[in-house]
């Protein structure tokens, strides 16, 4: 344990002293995230889409609908209740108003009438704007039609499970997945190969320390770095782009750890198979680059041709990106992403076994 923690401590020191490594691990991912976020993530002017289910059809309800329609930033879509609420769940509506039958009568008779508003809270800011806008308009109608705004109340309900992804919600976990992949793959494969070339591995071999403890410290270092990268990216993502991080911290950490271990194993395998540190680096690049572009981590692959989808599903990064997204944004539990976890663990184990099988001290 003593040797393990020393080794780990110095692995960390060495990495953090490497300015270039720090740049690639922390600054570069932030740059990528900011660029992608600002280029593709800008939502432009806010346009509120409001679904209205008018079961009443009275003058009052008509007046409310007209008032909503008269506002430029609001687009009113009329429809049935089930249909509109389904659209809301798909994040296609900002709110759905349901005006029950008999609402107009009640109000005209001086009784209080109630409108139910289901609101899309996938984006907190927009939800607030929607809520206050709709409430304001309805109050105004109540004022002008029956001089008693308190008669109309809005029963605000939050629609659950809105699949309200914005691009940044998709992209930030994706960038994190790529960054962790690079950390494991590049950092580790090249470092082990360099140590072999320099004869450091041989020197370690003539001491009583075992290979697992020597390499284990490096692997632990990569995992800790991955967690640090996750914290930095998520904090910046949340503060700059309002990425909605809903996940359980423990699950998020587990997903990051499993992914980091998986890609470290891949890097380790490359270092075992490659002849020199240079070829290890080239091989790691050759693996990482296509994976980065084909795994659908920066952009959704929903609309790409089937062949590409099939390829994506064969790449571990696809599963890692998916796991991070589900667990961070979708607030999934580990049970929900079991397939991703199993694929990553299995892939990591196979790589690790090959790495150990072909490991060379010199």
């Amino acid at each position: 344990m003593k040797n393990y923690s020393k080794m780990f401590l110095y692995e960390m020191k060495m990495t953090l002293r490497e300015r270039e490594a720090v740049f690639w691990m922390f600054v570069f991912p932030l740059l990528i995230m900011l660029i992608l976020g600002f280029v593709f993530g800008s939502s432009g002017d806010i346009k509120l889409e409001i679904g209205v289910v008018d079961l009443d059809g009275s003058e009052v309800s008509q007046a409310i609908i007209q008032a909503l329609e008269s506002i430029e930033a609001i687009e009113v879509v009329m429809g049935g209740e089930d249909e509109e609420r389904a659209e809301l769940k798909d994040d296609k509506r900002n709110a759905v108003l349901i005006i029950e039958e008999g609402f107009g009568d009640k109000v005209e008779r001086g009784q209080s009438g109630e409108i139910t508003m289901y609101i899309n809270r996938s984006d907190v800011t927009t939800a607030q704007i929607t809520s206050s806008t709709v409430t304001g308009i309805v109050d105004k109608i109540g004022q002008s039609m029956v001089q008693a705004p308190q008669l109309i109340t809005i029963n605000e309900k939050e629609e659950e499970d809105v699949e309200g992804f914005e691009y940044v919600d998709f992209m930030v976990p994706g960038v994190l997945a790529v960054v962790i992949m690079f950390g494991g793959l590049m950092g580790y494969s090249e470092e082990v190969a360099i140590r072999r070339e320099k004869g450091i591995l041989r020197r370690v071999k003539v001491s009583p320390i075992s290979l697992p403890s020597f390499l284990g410290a490096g692997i632990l270092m990569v995992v800790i770095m991955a967690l640090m990268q996750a914290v930095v990216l998520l904090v910046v993502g949340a503060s700059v782009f309002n990425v909605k991080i809903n996940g359980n911290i423990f699950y998020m950490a587990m997903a990051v750890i499993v992914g980091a271990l998986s890609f470290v194993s891949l890097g380790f395998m490359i270092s075992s198979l490659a002849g020199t540190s240079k070829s290890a680096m080239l091989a790691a690049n050759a693996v990482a680059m296509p994976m980065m572009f084909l795994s659908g981590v920066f952009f959704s692959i929903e609309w790409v041709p089937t062949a590409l989808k099939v390829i994506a599903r064969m790449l571990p990064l696809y599963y890692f990106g998916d796991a991070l997204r589900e667990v961070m944004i979708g607030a999934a539990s580990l049970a929900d992403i079991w397939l991703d976890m199993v694929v990553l663990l299995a892939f990591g184990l196979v790589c690790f076994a090959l790495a150990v099988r072909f490991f060379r001290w010199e």
Partner: protein
Amino acid sequence: MPAILIEDLKKHYGEVKAVDGINLEVEEGEIFGILGPNGAGKTTTLEMVETLRKPDSGRIQVLGMDVGEEPKAIKESIGVQLQTTVFFDKLKVRETIDLFCSFYPRTLSVDKLIDIATLGDKADAMVSDLSGGQHKRLSIALALVNDPRIVFLDEPTTGLDPQARRRIWEIVEGLRDEEKTVVITTHYIEEAEYLCDRVAVMDHGRIVAWGTPDDLIDEYVSDGIITFRLTRPVEEGIIEKIEGVKSLSRRDDEYMVITPTPQKTLLSIFAMAHDQGVEADDVNMKRATLEDVFLKITGRRIRE
């Protein structure tokens, strides 16, 4: 019990007989040198003793323990400086020593090691900023972290300037005072003569001679050695006929003769030169060295 016992050790790489059946005994507390040209098999031999390589056949015992059977116990009681070890560039000297200390159950203190290696003024320097000599001293410090009974130094001074070499020699002499067994490989004659209690001369995977440096020189080249250059080459037969010349070797325009009667031979050389109408130049009479022993045995120089 000898510190190291090697019996009929062999290691072949395909056709190349890197180590071709050697026997050796290193006593505890001695500084034992393995002298030979590059490719003689010194490093391969050492690495088999250090548990780094598996012998094809033969037996190696270190402190009574068999290398194949108790590698871990052996690793704990030996210290190794490999011929080419580059350490972590991004660690400081002190940190590097501290790190290697963590690999062993029982160690000297980091400060003591820095002191032994005379790296006090560089303790907080990055390894990447060390000079060649400092780097070698660091690698010796790392070979001593576990206070080993046997220290292996593989060409500890190769590529160093004379001053840096001296400092390493001082460290090795300090080890002698600590009664450690030191096994050192080198292709520097002076180093072997200066440091080693006993020397094994190795060539082509075999040990061609062994003993104390003085004994070796007495045994193989008790005669005087005269070297000289001639302004113009002279037929070798003429030089061989000079009075007292027992053997002649020639390298470019430099001749070397071995003679039991150095003074007479010296005069005869000038006489010969006069007769041949050439001038003898750069004439030297010297004490024989291990180089001459090597030359005598193999017909080649150690450093070619």
